[in-house]
């Protein structure tokens, strides 16, 4: 995968006059940049580097292609509710084409698109939201009389990079759910089939967190390369961990305290939602730590009392039924894990490490048994639970 961005405009130097004109103080602005650097797991000094890149007067052109979408991704981005940030994004980039936000319509905006594509050939960032229908020649989504399939080929092959925002463009999303009536296909699959080499970053989620998108854009602007991606093409800073691993209800899972139905005692007490079908254990995203819309603590699905349905995870969201329990990818640490604090005067010995490794191996078996036992405990309490029948 190509990850150099020689094509992007040079972004060195330049004051943030536009920001000051909008009443954004230098201090506020640097705070935002440092926060973004921290969210991406970058070293502290990187905030200043991001600030420098984004205050450059040369704004990189962005073309936004809408395919089979619901505009939820755009909405979530616009409602990030960070008063400075939502203004910033409109000041930072030159959004040359966006169907929902363009002032002109019809011919006018199609011409703006054509002009930007000609002037910025190989330099613009293409953002795609929505899946691409390929069935019946792609007739299920058209803009200006052309299928989005042909538009994606044309615009994608000339872009510096493509950001697939949302689950639909990342892996097919809701339109690709069984029986996938329109042949909804993600961007990377179209590129692979057509031999288009433009790099694609996937920001899945339904909708994705606006800050994951913004952070990726700022990373591109600052370093002129893609952030580190996992094997699914997702930035590692955002999709590196399971939701289950960062969930505020994880202690309830480990202790075997579950909500068994909506509104029951456990549900009202904020117990783990695993048995209601929570897909946190198989979904990689940063929802529990980043939260949504700057609305304060618990502003994410599990925080509000609903199981995660794996909206951002390929083959999970819209594929596995909502109330089917998740497959556990990692195991609960068993009680016989080696101690973290060593006894006084002893370091870790080779023999000790070998024993620990053996214990960890055995632990997988123990944990598998433990997770089955969780069902038994609940049955003992006299609750009916279809899951426990298997154990």
């Amino acid at each position, binding site marked *: 995968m190509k990850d150099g961005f020689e094509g992007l405009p040079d972004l060195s130097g330049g004051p943030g006059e536009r920001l000051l004109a909008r009443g954004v103080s230098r201090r506020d602005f640097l705070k935002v940049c440092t926060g973004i650097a921290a969210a991406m797991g970058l070293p502290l000094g990187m905030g200043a580097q991001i600030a420098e890149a984004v205050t450059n007067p040369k704004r990189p052109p962005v073309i936004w292609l809408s395919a089979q979408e*619901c505009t939820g991704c755009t909405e*979530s981005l616009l409602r990030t509710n960070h008063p400075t940030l939502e203004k910033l994004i409109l000041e930072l980039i030159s959004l040359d084409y966006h169907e929902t936000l363009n002032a002109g319509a*019809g011919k006018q905006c199609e011409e703006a698109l054509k002009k930007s594509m000609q002037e910025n050939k190989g330099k613009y960032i293409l953002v795609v939201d929505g899946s691409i229908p390929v069935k019946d020649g792609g007739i299920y989504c058209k803009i*200006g*009389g052309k299928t989005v399939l042909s538009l994606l080929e044309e615009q994608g092959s000339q872009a510096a990079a493509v950001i697939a925002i949302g689950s639909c463009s990342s892996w097919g999303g*809701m339109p690709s759910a069984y029986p*996938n009536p329109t042949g909804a296909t993600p961007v990377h699959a179209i590129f692979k089939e057509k031999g288009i080499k433009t790099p694609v970053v996937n920001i899945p989620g339904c909708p994705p967190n606006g800050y994951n998108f913004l952070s990726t854009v700022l990373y591109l602007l600052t370093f002129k390369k893609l952030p580190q991606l996992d094997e699914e093409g997702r930035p590692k800073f955002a999709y590196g961990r399971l939701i289950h691993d960062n969930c505020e209800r994880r202690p309830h899972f480990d202790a075997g305290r579950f909500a068994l139905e909506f509104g029951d005692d456990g549900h009202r007490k904020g117990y783990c939602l695993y048995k209601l079908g929570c897909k946190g254990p198989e979904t990689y995203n940063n929802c529990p730590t980043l939260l949504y819309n700057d609305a304060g603590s618990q502003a994410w699905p599990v925080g509000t009392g609903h199981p995660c*349905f794996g909206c951002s995870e390929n083959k999970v969201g819209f594929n596995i*039924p909502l*109330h089917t329990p998740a497959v556990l990818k990692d195991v609960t640490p068993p009680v016989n894990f080696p101690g973290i604090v060593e006894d006084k005067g002893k370091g870790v010995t080779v023999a000790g490490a070998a024993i620990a490794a053996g214990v960890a191996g055995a632990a997988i078996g123990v944990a598998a048994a433990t997770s089955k036992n969780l069902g038994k405990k609940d049955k003992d309490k006299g609750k009916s639970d279809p899951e426990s029948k298997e154990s």
Partner: protein
Amino acid sequence: MSKRIVIDPITRIEGHLRIDCEVDGGKVVNAWSSGQMWRGIELIVKDRDPREVWLFTQRFCGV
């Protein structure tokens, strides 16, 4: 002789809307509006567990 004007896409709305107008002597004599995108959500929710249908229908429109 009437003239046909096509406005596609209609912007500042959600979705892919197209308007066709037939204009004769400076007057609109006929007009059509058409949605240019179809996902088949009706077919996707058919025979599904009703408890999870909201997941799909909720995504008709994200505005």
